[in-house]
């Protein structure tokens, strides 16, 4: 049984601190080249196929901008 996950990022509230990126065990997420209205490089899923929905990124996020979804397949 495998786990597949996905995250939804509130890009307007994300401050691009990058703490989640180093704590992602599957190297799924990265900071985008684009910026939000405040000028921060927000978080996005660079390799969405890697995500297992482990919630590590959302756990360490200081601004609570990440929502995590997970399914068993």
């Amino acid at each position, binding site marked *: 049984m495998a786990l597949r996950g996905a995250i939804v990022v509130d890009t307007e509230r994300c401050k691009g601190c990058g703490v989640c990126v180093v704590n992602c065990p599957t190297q799924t997420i990265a900071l985008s080249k684009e910026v939000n209205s405040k000028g*921060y490089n927000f978080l996005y899923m660079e390799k969405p196929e890697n995500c297992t929905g482990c*919630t590590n990124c*959302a*756990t*360490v996020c200081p601004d*609570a901008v990440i*929502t995590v979804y997970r399914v068993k397949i």
Partner: protein
Amino acid sequence: MDIKDIIKPENKVYGKTPVLKDAVLHYCPGCSHGVVHKLIAEVIEEMGIQDKTIGISPVGCSVFAYNYLDIDWQQAAHGRAPALATATKRLMPDKYVFTYQGDGDLASIGTAEIMHACNRGENIVVIFINNAIYGMTGGQMAPTTLLGQVTATTPYGRQADLNGYPLKITELIAQLEGTCYVTRQSVQNPAAVRKTKKAIRKAFENSAMNKGTSFVEVVSTCNSGWKTTPVKANKWMEENMFPFYPLGDMKDR
């Protein structure tokens, strides 16, 4: 499997708790305050005590904590949060009262208040954020600043003969009879965040059982004050803060 099939309400495993308001936190990117706010909100939601909790916000970066958690708040004068919490808890003993204080507030100007509140064994929870610097005012030396640490007021590093030694206030408080639970935690990675959440939950539960003061120190980062990036600040904290401020429970009864 397509991402659209995964992102459905029934598959949601983690999201922002409703106790946390929608307001954007004013903290710098990567600030530990945000994580601790989130943990307190999650504990309040899990325990179902949103309408029974009263927070006392300090002076410092977290002075606006009352904008972010959807509970009752009172704002104290600098360092006086434990005194205000004492009054609140004694007048309303069925409420959960906690103070949220930084190291400048708790360990410097508020030392007398916290010592005596803990010594009296008031049934309150104290959340102490120790980032070894005065963040709000521009990165000056705090009582908890490490020896050799460069700040705005110690440009050549803190020296013991001129500035004194860093204050281990949590160790002092652990010796007081009035405290029932004294612990030091951190929030730099998922494992540490989960441990801190357990500690905060235990502190709130102790408050309901009238066991005495529960004191949770969270060793934190201030990347703006330390003049570094959030990720490097976490690393610096692990390498420099943890040897001097070791994590773990100091007292649990």
